[in-house]
């Protein structure tokens, strides 16, 4: 899922300073699962903002909405009939959702209520870790299901660097060496021959380095 963290409330209040009636828009997708931008978070943030603003003597009216997804046009369109009645939209969807709203609703300012994180997994309630950087050329079949692009801090492709000590990355003592994890898994799976199948070099043209990416599925158009 796409993860995120709430923006500090003071930062949100500063963004909202010029406005006195807004829409607070949540999303039922990833941000609901990671408890940062779903229906419940809309209710909590709306109450928090109303209380903070009223206590400061400048009340704010907030319309609370939660779209099925903010990254799909049919759901974004649901806001169109009433969006112009408000001065701004504060979205607590991921960065993709917020931008998509901004593209489709051009007459109203869009404000971000969360900081979008990464493509990750839930370790336990309240803890998420990164797994995928969307490089566009998956090699997990060769690396025991552990991604060298994401799990190695340097995105190395041919084994650990000299900074790995006893399976721990030199970047942070909390981070396990991605390549140690890969080798251990390949040994456990008796698939060490896969280590030699990695490409001599990785082409990054399918990754972010080639600028904003696009997927076109001719079979679906």
């Amino acid at each position, binding site marked *: 899922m796409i993860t995120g963290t709430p923006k500090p409330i003071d930062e949100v209040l500063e963004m909202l300073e010029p406005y006195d009636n807004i829409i607070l828009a949540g999303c039922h997708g990833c941000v609901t699962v990671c408890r940062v931008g779903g229906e419940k978070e809309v209710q*909590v943030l709306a109450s928090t903002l*109303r209380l903070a603003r*009223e206590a400061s003597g400048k009340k704010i009216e907030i319309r609370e909405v939660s779209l099925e997804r903010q990254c799909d046009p049919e759901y974004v369109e649901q806001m169109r009939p009433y969006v112009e009645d408000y001065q701004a939209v504060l979205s607590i969807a991921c960065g993709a959702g917020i931008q998509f709203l901004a593209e489709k609703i051009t007459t109203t300012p869009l404000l971000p209520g969360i900081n979008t994180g990464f493509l990750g997994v839930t370790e336990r309630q309240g803890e998420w870790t990164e797994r995928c950087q969307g490089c566009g050329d998956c090699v997990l079949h060769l690396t025991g299901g552990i991604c060298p692009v994401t799990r190695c801090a340097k995105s190395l492709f041919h084994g650990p660097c000299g900074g790995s000590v006893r399976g721990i990355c030199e970047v942070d003592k909390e981070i396990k060496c991605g390549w140690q994890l890969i080798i251990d898994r390949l040994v456990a799976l008796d698939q060490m021959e896969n280590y030699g199948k990695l490409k001599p070099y990785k082409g990054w043209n399918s990754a972010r380095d080639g600028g904003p990416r696009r997927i076109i599925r001719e079979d679906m158009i």
Partner: protein
Amino acid sequence: MLPCTGRIDEALLLKAFENGADGVMVVGCLEGDCHYISGNIRARARVKRVYAILEQIKIGPNRIRMYNLSAGEGSKFAAYANEFVDQIVELGPSPINLARGGGVQAAKEEETT
């Protein structure tokens, strides 16, 4: 009145302040004695989060507190309720009620007149 504090969520607690409460006292069963296994533990975590929110927005974190007691401890409930009311009276009206021109003080004045 809720059948279990596990039903309480942050939005509900904040709504009480929006509706004019100067303080919110959450009373749950004794920890380890929840009929629904962990309702009161969940409530404690949610109260803690609202405590942090109230601190951030300067409403005052001490305006919310959770107590745990059994349904048979009537006198203890009364003592806790009195303790919490004293705490809120000492804090005075919440900034929301001050902005609205009311709160505990106004209610007390109304009572005496």
